[in-house]
C-alpha cells in the first residue's frame, strides 16, 4: 500500500449549520472564502475543485456554486457518496495533490433542504418503493436493540453519548444544535421517540450548511504555515471501501454498515499512516445515532468488543477524557447536512491539530481520525497529524 506523501490541509471554513440557510451559492461562498482566507490563498491559486452535495434539488448546480468564488476556469467535479459525500470530496482533493498533478485542491460541500432523510416519521403520500420503506433510522434502531440484547447496553448509555455530543456542540459556533444549558441524560430520554430506542435528541440533526477544506502539496503548505506561525496538518491516510459479503449480510433497505466494513477500512488506514488506534488524540465517526459511537469505538480498535460502554461510563470519550469523540458535536449536535459533514469533521480536526479549537481544544492534540459511512454503503477513513513547519511532529 502506498503511503500518502506531501498532502497538507492549509485552509478550512464553514457556513454555520442552520435549520434553513440562505441559497447554496451564498453558503458555498461563505465556506469557500473562509477556507481561502484561512489558508492565505486566492481562488485563482486553486487548481481543481471537488464539490460534494446530495442532489435532492435539481436546481442545485454544483458548478454554479463554485463560480461564486470566481470564474477561473478551474476544473470542477461533483462528488456524491450519500452521508460520506464530504469525505469523498476531501479524498478526491487529497488524491489529486498526492498524485502530483496539482499543487492546490479544494473540497467544498454544500447541504440544503434538511440534509439526510434518516427518519420518515410520516407515511409517504404516494406508494414508496420497497427500498424506501426501510430507512436508516430503523436500521440503526435494530443495531441498538440487538446490542442491548448481546452486550446489555442501556438506553441511559445511549442518552449519555447524545448528551455528551450536545454539550460538545455548545462550544461550536457553527453547530446546528447549541443548547443554552447543560444537556442531561434525562432530557435526552424525554425527547420524542423516533425509532426505538432512539429519541429525537439522539438522532442526527438535519440542516443546511457548507464546509470547505483546501489541501496543498508540501512546498505551498510550508510557506503558508511559516507565514502564519502555524504547525502543518498532514493527511497521512485516506481509505474508501464498499461492502464485502459476510454472514448475516443485509442487502435490502437502508444499509449503512456492516460494522465489519469499518474494521477493515480503519485497519487499512492505520497501516497506511503507520500508526495505531492507541496513538489517536481525538476521533470523529458517523454518529447519526449513539449506538454507532459504541460500535465504532470497538471496530476502530480503541477497545475490545463489548467494552465501549465502559469507556463511555468513565468519561474517556468526553472532552477532557483520554480519547474524545465528536469534539464539535458530531452528527447529532453539530449536524448532518450531508454534503458538508465529512468536511466539517476535517474542519474540527484541523483546528484541533493546530491548537486553534478554543473551548473545544483537546490538550496536545497530535493525531486524529475522521470516519464516515455512506448508505449503500461505503466507509471513508482519514487520518491527519500535526507536523511542525520545520518538519518535526
Amino acid at each position, binding site marked *: 500500500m502506498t503511503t500518502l506523501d506531501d498532502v497538507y490541509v492549509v485552509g478550512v471554513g464553514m457556513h454555520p449549520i442552520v435549520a434553513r440557510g440562505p441559497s447554496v451559492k451564498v453558503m458555498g461562498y461563505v465556506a469557500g472564502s473562509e477556507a481561502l482566507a484561512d489558508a492565505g490563498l486566492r481562488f485563482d491559486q486553486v487548481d481543481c475543485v471537488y464539490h460534494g452535495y446530495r442532489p435532492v434539488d435539481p436546481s442545485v448546480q454544483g458548478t454554479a456554486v463554485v463560480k461564486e468564488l470566481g470564474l477561473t476556469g478551474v476544473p470542477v467535479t461533483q462528488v456524491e457518496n450519500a452521508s460520506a459525500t464530504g469525505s469523498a470530496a476531501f479524498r478526491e482533493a487529497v488524491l489529486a495533490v498526492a498524485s502530483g498533478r496539482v499543487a492546490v485542491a479544494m473540497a467544498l460541500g454544500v447541504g440544503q433542504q434538511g440534509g439526510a432523510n434518516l*427518519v*420518515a*416519521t*410520516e*407515511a*409517504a*403520500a*404516494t*406508494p*414508496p*418503493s*420497497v427500498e424506501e*420503506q*426501510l430507512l436508516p*433510522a*430503523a*436500521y440503526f*434502531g*435494530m*443495531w*441498538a*436493540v*440487538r446490542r442491548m*440484547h448481546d452486550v446489555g447496553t442501556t438506553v441511559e448509555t445511549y442518552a449519555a453519548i447524545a448528551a455528551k455530543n450536545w454539550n460538545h456542540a455548545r462550544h461550536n459556533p457553527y453547530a446546528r444544535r447549541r443548547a443554552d444549558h447543560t444537556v442531561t441524560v434525562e432530557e435526552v430520554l424525554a425527547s*420524542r*421517540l*423516533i*425509532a*426505538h*430506542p432512539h429519541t429525537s435528541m439522539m438522532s442526527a440533526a438535519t440542516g443546511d450548511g457548507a464546509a470547505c477544506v483546501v489541501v496543498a502539496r508540501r512546498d505551498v503548505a510550508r510557506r503558508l504555515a511559516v507565514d502564519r506561525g502555524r504547525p502543518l496538518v498532514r493527511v497521512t491516510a485516506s481509505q474508501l471501501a464498499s461492502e464485502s*459479503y459476510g454472514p*448475516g*449480510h*443485509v*442487502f*435490502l*433497505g*437502508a*444499509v449503512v454498515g456492516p460494522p465489519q466494513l469499518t474494521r477493515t477500512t480503519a485497519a487499512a488506514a492505520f497501516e497506511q499512516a503507520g500508526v495505531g488506534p492507541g496513538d489517536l488524540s481525538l476521533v470523529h465517526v458517523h454518529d447519526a445515532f449513539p449506538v454507532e459511537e459504541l460500535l465504532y469505538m470497538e471496530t476502530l480498535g480503541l477497545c475490545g468488543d463489548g467494552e465501549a460502554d465502559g469507556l463511555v461510563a468513565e468519561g474517556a470519550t468526553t472532552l477532557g477524557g483520554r480519547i474524545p469523540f465528536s469534539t464539535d458535536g458530531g452528527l447529532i449536535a453539530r449536524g448532518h447536512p450531508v454534503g458538508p459533514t465529512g468536511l466539517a469533521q476535517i474542519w474540527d480536526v484541523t483546528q484541533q491539530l493546530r491548537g486553534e479549537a478554543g473551548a473545544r481544544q483537546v490538550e496536545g492534540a497530535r493525531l486524529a481520525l475522521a470516519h464516515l459511512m455512506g448508505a449503500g454503503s461505503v466507509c471513508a477513513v482519514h487520518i491527519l497529524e500535526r507536523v511542525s513547519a520545520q518538519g518535526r511532529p
Partner: protein
Amino acid sequence: MGSEPPRRQVALEAGYVLVPDQDGRGPALLASHSQATGDTYFPRRSCCPVTFGPVEEVELSAPGELYSWTYIAQRRPDGTVVPVGVGQVDLPEGPRIQAPLAGVPGDWEIGMAMELELTPVLDPSGAPFLDADGAEMVTFGFRPVAAP
C-alpha cells in the same frame, strides 16, 4: 348486508415477492442461490456477489428467526402516533431479511420464530394504497408464528 369480497392484491414492486393473486402461488420471497458458494442472496441478483458466476432463482417461504426489531413512531395527519414495526429476520437458507413487522411493541423478542406474510402498504391516513385497477398494494413482511 353481505360482506364485500376481499380486494385483489398486487405487489408494491415486482421482483421481490410472489403474490398469489398475481403469480398463482406464494407468498414467497424471490432470491438467488449460488451453487459455487452455497449461499442464498435476497433480493435477487444478476450474478453471485463473491464469484461473479451464475445464480439460480429460488423461492423462500419457510419461517425464520428474529435477529432484531425496532419500531418507528409514525405520526398520522390527525396527530396520533402509531408504532410501525421493522425487523431483521434470518431465514433457514441463510439470508438476513430487513422488512416490516406485524404486531405492536411487546410482541417481538429476539430469537422468536417469524413467518412471511403479505402486508398492505398504508397511506398517511392508514388506508391501503390501491393501484389503478383498485387492487391493494402489498409488500412482504413478517409476523410472529402463531402458537399451536
